[in-house]
């Protein structure tokens, strides 16, 4: 789960990391009030996607009137498909230098990694590799103070900034651990007269740890449709084709989508019904899929924990509840395969055992209509 900039900064502020004074505003009036309080401000779109600067989502205002204008403009924008619902009005900083500092999970090293660069401010992907310092932390030791000293030295910060840098690094590390973060990032970590300030901040929290992060606010990037399917406990991503896909397992679902594409079909979604899902949620998910008006539906089940008869029953339930108004192709193998296939055949729904044949069939049907 990504937090909005202002939420991330709230967490950092509470952890003692210096952040600019700011106000979250949802109307131009609020932005004007913020500018009256804070003086000249930066008005920053609050979105969960990157690249808002290039999209015009950050504007500078000298006066309250200007702040209102900027907010008005930004609040009507969409940035990479995301509507802007709020802006952060922040005091302007006198920035001498921009650094980059982040803690992230490195899946390959299976450990946290501290990442820093003297070239902050721009997208870190655009910084040349040799200008980036990485320092892996040892689990469960975490950050040891000398590591922050090492980083500060490599960034050539000098003694007084080095101490502030070490302090901020320690605090970011505490946030990283205590908030189950996958990423906590300050870009830029700004050198201002008198010290360092996290001018921008990002905090991505592990979705799997949200149950023990109750104090954190919640955000979502999912579309309303995705939300509905995820509420059933299933993994779902919308694509832009016309063949709805349901399979059981992330890998096989991805592979099913790949196969359709390779056969000239256009998959409409990625729906992983997981292993061992019961008939109820499966039926609900299928119903949602049908409600999106696909040209055809492919259900691809390799039953391990998942029982084929349960899947068949889910399909029959859906047919009973709303009818099947589009071609439905089912591939069923594995646990209780015979029973499942028999149930479907009685209802006149063909069931394939070959994934290949099922894929070919559904692509053909989607084309026929």
């Amino acid at each position, binding site marked *: 789960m990504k937090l909005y900039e202002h939420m991330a900064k709230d967490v950092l502020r509470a952890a003692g990391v210096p952040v600019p004074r700011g106000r979250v505003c949802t109307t131009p009036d609020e932005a004007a009030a913020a500018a009256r309080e804070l003086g000249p401000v930066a008005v920053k779109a609050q979105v969960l996607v990157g690249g808002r600067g290039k999209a015009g989502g950050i504007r500078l205002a000298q006066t309250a009137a200007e702040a209102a204008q900027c907010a008005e403009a930004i609040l009507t924008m969409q940035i990479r498909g995301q509507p802007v619902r709020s802006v952060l009005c922040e005091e302007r900083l006198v920035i001498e230098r921009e650094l980059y500092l982040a803690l992230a*999970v490195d899946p390959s090293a*299976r450990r946290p990694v501290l990442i820093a660069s003297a070239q902050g401010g721009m997208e870190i992907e655009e910084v040349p590799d040799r200008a980036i310092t990485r320092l892996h932390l040892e689990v469960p030791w975490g950050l040891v103070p000398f590591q922050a000293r090492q980083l500060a030295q490599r960034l050539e910060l000098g003694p007084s900034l080095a101490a502030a840098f070490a302090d901020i690094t320690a605090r970011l590390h505490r946030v990283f651990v205590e908030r189950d973060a996958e990423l906590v990032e300050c870009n830029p970590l700004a050198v201002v007269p008198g010290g360092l300030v996290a001018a921008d901040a990002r905090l991505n929290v*592990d979705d*799997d740890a949200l*149950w023990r992060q109750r104090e954190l606010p919640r955000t979502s990037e999912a579309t309303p449709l995705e939300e509905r399917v995820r509420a059933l406990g299933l993994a779902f991503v919308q694509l832009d084709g016309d063949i709805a896909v349901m399979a059981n397992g992330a890998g096989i679902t*991805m592979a099913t989508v790949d196969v359709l594409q390779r056969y000239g079909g256009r998959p409409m979604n990625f729906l992983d019904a997981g292993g061992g899902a019961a008939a109820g949620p499966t039926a609900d998910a299928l119903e949602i899929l049908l409600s999106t008006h696909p040209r055809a539906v492919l259900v691809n089940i390799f039953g391990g924990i998942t029982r084929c008869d349960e899947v068949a029953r889910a399909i029959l339930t859906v047919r009973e509840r709303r009818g099947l108004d589009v071609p439905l192709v089912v591939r069923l193998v594995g646990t209780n395969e015979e029973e499942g296939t028999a149930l479907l055949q009685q209802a006149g729904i063909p069931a394939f055992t070959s994934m290949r044949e099922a894929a070919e069939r559904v692509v053909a049907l989607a084309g026929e209509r």
Partner: protein
Amino acid sequence: MGILVDERTKVVVSGITGRQGRFHTQQMLEFGTRIVAGVSPGHGGEEVGGVPVYETVQAAVDKHGATSAVLFVPAPHVRDAALEAIAAGLSPVVVIAEHVPVHDAMDVVAFAAEHRAVVIGPNTYGLCTPAGRAKLGIPPGRIFSPGPVGVLARSGTLSYEIVAALTEAGLGQSTVVGLGGDRVVGTSFVETLKRFAKDEQTRVLVLVGEIGGSAEEEAAEFVKGLDKPVVAYLAGASAPTGKRMGHAGAIIERGRGTYASKRRALEDAGVHVADLPWEVAPLVREALGRLEETAREG
């Protein structure tokens, strides 16, 4: 014969009294796995399918000389249960649960490294050595058959699909290992390839990968020095980008992690990458054929 588990593996099932634990204990027993004990706090003294249940892993080890563990505990308890199994000296420790917090996974990995234990998972179906009748985890037993093919995979059902096709084609497996679908897992492709490299039964390898992370690229590096042929299938060719963890993730990966980069890395290392899942078995057969030819010539 095979890697990591075999007929000598004596298994403790942690979380044996839960719904999943009970069901899969039965399934594993039917396959022939030597399950010697179960663990479930508050259920010590009970039995599940004839398997005695204890309060702690240590008790199960003391009584039955268990060597390995499969964990069916839910995600919030994985860290504790895994550390318990590792501290009791068990290896491999197979973590089935998905949705394990990544910081917990890093703890488990570090603790295992300190204790020289192998962790498989989290978010795995487990592993199976068919000739040893050792199945630790949840895959359907009937898809396996003994043979010369080592399989290593990140995802579950896709593995079943490919393993079932191998079995159907008469291409049995030495060991099938599900490494787990999470970003941080206990055992990597490379570590598993190293084990397969030393296993006499294994003659050909099948690597089932997917987009994200850099495990396949690292595997490709290792494969360059490996004298056993490798066939791969990669899922996610058509997945949209941008469902990633963001910038720092991107700079950790630095251009790796895409379907194209993985495929290129593997092909550069001499791996045959199948376009479609059902092409894997024929490619394996070809590889075995070439091996036999070389043997005849040599």
